[in-house]
């Protein structure tokens, strides 16, 4: 279906999926880490001045 150079086409799309997937996973876990840390600190009574 993809002709004699199928390997190159699949490799290019796989690399893209891997890099984009990696970026998404990194951003989601990073976001969770900071949200948890913030909740932790606020639970200990340390709040931002501007926080309501």
């Amino acid at each position, binding site marked *: 279906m*993809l*002709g*004699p*150079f*199928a390997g*190159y*086409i699949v*490799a*290019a*799309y796989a*690399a*893209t999926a891997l*890099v*984009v997937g*990696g*970026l*998404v996973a990194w*951003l*989601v876990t*990073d*976001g969770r880490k*900071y*949200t948890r*840390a*913030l909740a932790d*600190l*606020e639970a*200990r009574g*340390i*709040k*931002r001045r*501007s926080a309501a």
Partner: protein
Amino acid sequence: MDAPAPKPYSDTMTEAATPTLIQSLANPTRFMALSARVLPWLAGAAILVIAYGLYLAFVMSPPDYQQGQTVKIMYIHVPSAWLAMAGYVTIAASGFGLLVWRHPLADVSARAAAPIGAAFTFLALVTGSLWGKPMWGTYWVWDARLTSMLLLFFLYLGLIALRSSIEDETAAAKLTAILALVGVALLPVIKFSVEWWNTLHQPSTRFTATLDPAFRTPLLVNALGFTLLFAALHVKAMRNEVLRRRVKSLQLAAVRQAARSETQ
């Protein structure tokens, strides 16, 4: 005799009371509220448009008469290369915003865009290389387009490394912004390299002129999808950066609080 009372700055005060759209967006708290609402739509739109783009690329788009099916690599290579440049423009514009207007979110934007832009530059290089081997017979040549794109990748890494090597975040932000603005000189070199020098890399695809609609439509749809994806990733990374700064300032406050209670 009493001096006359100074005239109040009524004009400027009115202006300050009604902030412009940019000013209100530059407030981190407002940004967090707005971006929380926008992000799911942005991510959803990116997924839908890319899915449609892939359907067009793999089901509807014919093989090229010269390149055969390898033309399908174009649908990810060109959008990645476009975002490599657009990502850099985002960083440079944010750097300008930081240095000139000191927008509180400008540095957040610059810092958030760097790893994402670097990732798309890497993808442009890798997909280009995987396209080059079957079409040119080689993964890599030191022609002007490929070399300047590699320099852009190193510039991204330089920005990330410079920032992480300076502990004082305010100084790191300023120095990174200056380097980002100096690096803008590379962008026209990349863009026009295929016209200024005799390169193995083909001239610009020219989204609208020379490309047959059978290839142009999937390319445009994928370029739009990738741009939406970049926007979604950037907004998410900016949200993370605002959270990181809040955690850092709270940790500092906690340390100060602990120090105070020890001295009492």
